[in-house]
């Protein structure tokens, strides 16, 4: 029984590996979404957030029969801006898309990158995940209001840890919170960590007074009671967790860490629409819906021009925060 369960995916893998070369020369797939030779570029290292998004999307698109064989490759560096430069240099290439997210918006600013997101073609925003405010289980803060009251009094004495460096999502969230609460962003004592993992130890050990990170990374620790979830930064509460949004707590802040796809500049309308059509079909596939569920991502569909406008507003928001911090 176990053996068969194991062998059948293996056999499937063999089929996947061997069959596409035989059939790619044939007609396109149902709905005409197939883009032969499509490649996804990941601007960070294997295993990172953009990597998982790109690899999941590629695999789901193949499994759903929307596209044969999408190659995923990594070009990490400088918070994603090395990859962005490459994307911008691939002018007119309709067979390339880059997975990216809010982190790249900040990295463009902190790295003074020569190529910005405005230089590339927006395809679609795909997913989003709220950030969360957590304290260890033995913290004296039981509610977000208690924390906020103390934070307003002495921002310097309440170090807040985040899993990203300056300009990254976990840095922006507390800064936006501080601004909405009337705390001078410069006085916020933000301690950057190398990812949510390293931050976790410092939150659990009480080294920082509270932590801001993605929900997905800490789901288990919250369920087991090691961490107390005080608030979520998204527009709505998260199902299964008894924690208010920032708005309910009186802070006019909505913040989600989103991810999406960008294409090179200079695409014809047909090229761009083809990519959007493929991603739209992917979004409606049951494979992608299943992936959203297992990864704890929320659907955040926003295609083409609308996505472009959203990127611009996010860019302005990041710019304002970083300017206020004097960077």
């Amino acid at each position, binding site marked *: 029984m176990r053996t068969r369960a194991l062998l059948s995916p293996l056999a499937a893998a063999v089929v996947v590996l061997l069959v596409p070369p035989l059939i790619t020369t044939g007609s396109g797939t149902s709905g005409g979404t197939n883009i032969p030779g499509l490649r996804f570029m990941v601007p960070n290292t294997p295993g990172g957030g953009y990597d998982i998004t790109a690899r999941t999307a590629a695999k789901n698109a193949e499994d759903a029969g929307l596209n044969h064989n999408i190659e995923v490759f990594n070009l*990490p560096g400088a918070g994603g801006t090395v990859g962005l430069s490459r994307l911008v240099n691939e002018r007119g290439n309709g067979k390339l898309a880059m997975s990216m997210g809010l982190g790249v918006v900040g990295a463009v600013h*902190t790295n003074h990158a020569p190529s910005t997101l405005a230089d590339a073609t927006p395809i679609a925003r795909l997913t989003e995940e709220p950030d969360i405010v957590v304290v260890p289980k033995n913290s004296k803060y039981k509610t977000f209001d208690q924390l906020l009251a103390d934070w307003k009094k002495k921002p*310097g004495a309440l170090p807040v840890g985040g899993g990203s460096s300056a300009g990254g999502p976990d840095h922006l969230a507390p800064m936006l919170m501080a601004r909405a609460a009337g705390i001078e962003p410069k006085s916020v004592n933000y*301690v950057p960590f190398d990812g949510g*993992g390293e931050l976790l*130890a410092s939150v659990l050990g009480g080294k920082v007074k509270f932590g801001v990170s993605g929900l997905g990374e800490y789901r288990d620790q919250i369920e*087991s009671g090691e961490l107390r979830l005080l608030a979520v930064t998204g527009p709505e509460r998260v199902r299964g967790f008894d924690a208010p949004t920032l708005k309910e707590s009186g802070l006019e802040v909505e913040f989600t860490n989103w991810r999406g796809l960008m294409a090179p500049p200079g695409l014809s309308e047909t090229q761009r629409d083809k990519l959007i059509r493929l991603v739209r079909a992917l979004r409606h596939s049951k494979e992608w819906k299943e992936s959203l569920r297992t990864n704890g991502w929320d659907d955040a569909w926003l295609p083409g021009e609308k996505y472009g406008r959203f990127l611009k507003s996010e860019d302005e928001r990041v710019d304002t925060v970083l300017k206020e911090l004097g*960077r």
Partner: protein
Amino acid sequence: MDVMLSASSLIDGFGTALTPLNLLWAATGVLLGTAIGVLPGIGPAMAVALLLPVTYGLDPTAAFIMFAGIYYGGMFGGSTTSILLNTPGESAAVIAAIEGNPMAKSGRGSQALAAAAVGHFAGGMIGTTLLVVLAPTVADLAVDIGAPDYFAIMVLAFIAVTSVLGSSRVRGFASLLIGLTIGLVGLDQMTGQQRLTFGSLQLSDGIDVVIVAVGLFAIGEALWVAAHLRRGGQGAIPVGRPWLGRDELRRTWKPWLRGPVIGFPFGAIPAGGAEIPTFLSYITEKRLSKNKHEFGKGAIEGVAGPESAASASAAGTLVSMLTLGLPTTAVAAVMLAAFQQYGIQPGPLLFEREPELVWGLIASLFVGMVMLLVLNLPLAPVWSKLLRVPRPYLYAGILFFAAVGAYAVGGEAIDLVILLIIGLIGLMMRRYGLPVLPAIIGVILGPNAEQQLRRALQISDGHVTGLVDTPFAVTVYAIIVVLLAWPWLKRLLPGARRRERVEDGG
């Protein structure tokens, strides 16, 4: 009671690991891991990431058994190129090159490889046993270690650096400063400020320690040899006896056992990693060795200890990843992502939710370790025959593999330029008699120490007392004071004793 429970769960785990199919996955993993680890520049993290898609079709237990094989196999393989060709494939194997390569050059390559293989085996076995016994305890302690504690350890490491500065202190410090400067390159994590990047995006992530090590060791060495080839002999490097002799065993068994003591705790704490314990193990062995004069010229203790420490730190890494869901190294981060691909969240509940997976994984670590030893010990004499190649060809090959390795780190052409520049620095350092080791240690320690210091000060909101407000940090500083005062104390102690004796006699 916990230990008894762990023991019975582990036996169940062996039940899972020893099924023929899972044994096959473990064997596939260690073979792939060794093969990929031997390629310079591709460390275990890259190996696991590249092979991640291969395992999509497997059930999680089989996939993780294979990952564990790749992880440990990559480490075994990584020290092979480090010792033979002076081109470390990952940062944990850098120290092995320092003593291992001189050994290989003097015809003791097989012994160095065997010492490394057994070191990995011993470190891995002891480390994994500690993982079984101590996992919950260590996990609790690990989160108590904060930035001030790390900084105290860094200060200790910097004090220890003085013992590797070589015969000329001035040259040693110059070398250390070169390393610290290279370590500064990149984006400052605290403020996002660019440092020594010259406006290049490619430099803003800093220079990978593997590129620095390969540049200083392999390229610098190859250029140096090329510059002297006409004068020196053109013959091949002698290949000596294939096995470890009795004398060598006598010298290595203690370092093998000491390595895990240093390596395991570092692997388990969140910012520990594998570089610093290998370096500390090296210093320890140098201090304790009776053959101090051999260090730098091929002391087998300097291979055995650090390799054992590296392996044990890998086991330690798994402690915090499995019990806290906290990745402390790049490999652990990739494995964490792999867990999430299967919809499994490592963390406090993992041992309860997925006992078959966790204990099967741990048991397969033991199985994989035995496989690796059986695979690598007979291979040691075979590998070392590689050095029979005449020197001009050998060094051409080294240059080739060094370039491949540097390119593999980030897949960027600019890395090759950086590699060559660092290689030229390495050549100049040899020309003017600057030791290479302090530079490497500067690259490893500098950025770490800076980050922990600034983080500690940030948390305390700028109060210097924040550096000494934990018992752990105070203890470490006390050890430092004793170490610094030791020459003075030593003079005092026997003297005092002699005086007493004189008084007794009189």
